[in-house]
């Protein structure tokens, strides 16, 4: 198990966004989080690398154990935690730097500046993100000149360049066209042999295609968590069934 989530409640000011969420996320597999808008799925995934720390007024109770350590306990080095748990966001957010510098950023902030190491890692991560062939001749041009789908794959390359253990995807395809989406989904499937992947998506077909486990959230609560096939064929909860069959959401 990569994560053990124990009775997590999360609040934005007075407003409660997560209510008593408990479950376990297995390692080296893809776990999808689905649910209607505003159900708390984004809030949940952003708890896993403490991105919510950046939100003023955010507070959380309960425990999230990562490899046995509560990531919300005192004395946790958040920057170190985030180096081990990478994240790809809803909107592609490459830095206004060259393609090369985007992929090299994670190493640079750790003080790695040796050209031969950076070259190797940049090429390796761009290959893993299936972007190398498209950009190898223009590594020094701006990342902002890439298409949306390429930018998102660059963000994946940027995240895997530092060899994290987990990669979190927060609706990574919602700003992309179907072809770019298919490419990203191939990526995610390929990544699970090396990484623990958690993906938030509002697209149920996507969850069914890429994941092995699925959690269904509604109104801040985890309604059901199980093997993906079971969720989609024989859900044990009526709410899940209604959502899956498209009766709401």
């Amino acid at each position, binding site marked *: 198990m990569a994560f053990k989530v124990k009775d997590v409640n999360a609040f934005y000011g007075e407003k409660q966004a997560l209510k008593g969420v408990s479950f376990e996320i297995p390692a080296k597999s893809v776990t999808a989080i689905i649910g209607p808008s505003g159900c708390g799925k984004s809030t949940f995934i952003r708890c896993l690398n403490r991105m919510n720390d*950046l939100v*003023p007024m955010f507070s959380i109770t309960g425990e999230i154990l990562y490899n046995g350590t509560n990531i919300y306990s005192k004395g946790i080095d958040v*920057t170190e935690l*985030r180096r081990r748990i990478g994240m790809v*966001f809803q909107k592609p957010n490459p*830095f*206004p730097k060259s393609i090369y510098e985007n992929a090299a*950023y994670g190493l640079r902030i750790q003080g790695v500046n040796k050209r031969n190491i950076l070259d190797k890692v940049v090429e390796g991560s761009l290959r893993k993100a299936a972007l190398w062939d498209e950009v190898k001749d223009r590594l020094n041009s701006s990342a902002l000149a890439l298409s949306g789908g390429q930018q998102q794959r660059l963000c994946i390359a*940027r995240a895997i360049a530092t060899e994290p253990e987990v990669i979190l995807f927060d609706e990574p395809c919602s700003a992309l066209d179907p072809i770019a989406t298919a490419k990203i989904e191939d990526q995610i499937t390929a990544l699970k042999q090396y990484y623990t992947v958690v993906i938030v998506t509002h697209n149920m077909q996507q969850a069914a295609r890429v994941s092995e486990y699925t959690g269904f959230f509604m109104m801040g609560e985890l309604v059901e968590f199980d093997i993906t096939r079971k969720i989609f064929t024989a859900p044990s909860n009526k709410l899940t069934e209604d959502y899956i069959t498209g009766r709401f959401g």
Partner: protein
Amino acid sequence: MYKRVQRYKERLIEGALFLSALFSIFITGGIIAVLFFETFEFFKEVSIIAFLTDTQWTPLFAEKHFGILPLFAGTFLTTVIAITVALPIGLISAIYLSEYATDRVRTMVKPALEVLAAVPTVVYGYFALLFVTPLLQKIIPDLSGFNALSPGIVMGIMIIPIISSLSEDAMHAVPMGLREGAYALGSTRLQVATRVVVPAAFSGIAASFMLGISRAVGETMIVAIAAGQQPRLTLNPLVPIATVTAYIVQVSLGDTPTGTIEYKTIFAVGISLFVVTFGLNMVSYWFKKKFMEVYE
């Protein structure tokens, strides 16, 4: 009938708007024309080569020299001192306000900092002459009562809010998504600020910096009061000097008869100053265009 009246009215309003827009262009054109005309008269009597290469500026003395270099040396010196003070402090306070301060602190500190820009420059001038200079003399005994250092520093203080406020605006406009991306890779706050936010806001920061330089080059009152009004070709900040602007003030005070060569010097000097600040504005415009990052 009614429609036709309406149409005339529209045209009248359009014409009035056009005229008022034209008005400011006319004024600018008029100023430049006067400058050019008087400067032309000046160069009938003084060669342009002497003006640009002579190392003395003594049009008010019996033995007249018209070398503008000493005045530009004075302007250069005070500007460099001012920017040396204003750039680091302005940039650091912008980074603090944009990346570290809570919303409450920012809404309190930013206007307070901007008050610095609202202090009349004549007050800054006397502040430099009567407070900063004596203070500096305790540390540097060789410092003259009039010098470039003290007004330079005070000018720098005056420019801080220009740099900090405009840079902070530029950094604030950097999308939150970029910061999140950097934090998610394990950046510290300082790394987010220096490696992502500052480069992303570079065009705005550079523009604020150029505006600060323009302001320092054009600043008049502080240097006229505290720098000494003695044109001198030197880069020594401890002795009295005169800047381009301070000289113009000196002549404009009224002792110099209209139409004389001394009087015409201020137009030649004025147009030189205009060329420099115009050049700086062009550079700043170019910077902005060249380094502007466009976000969706």
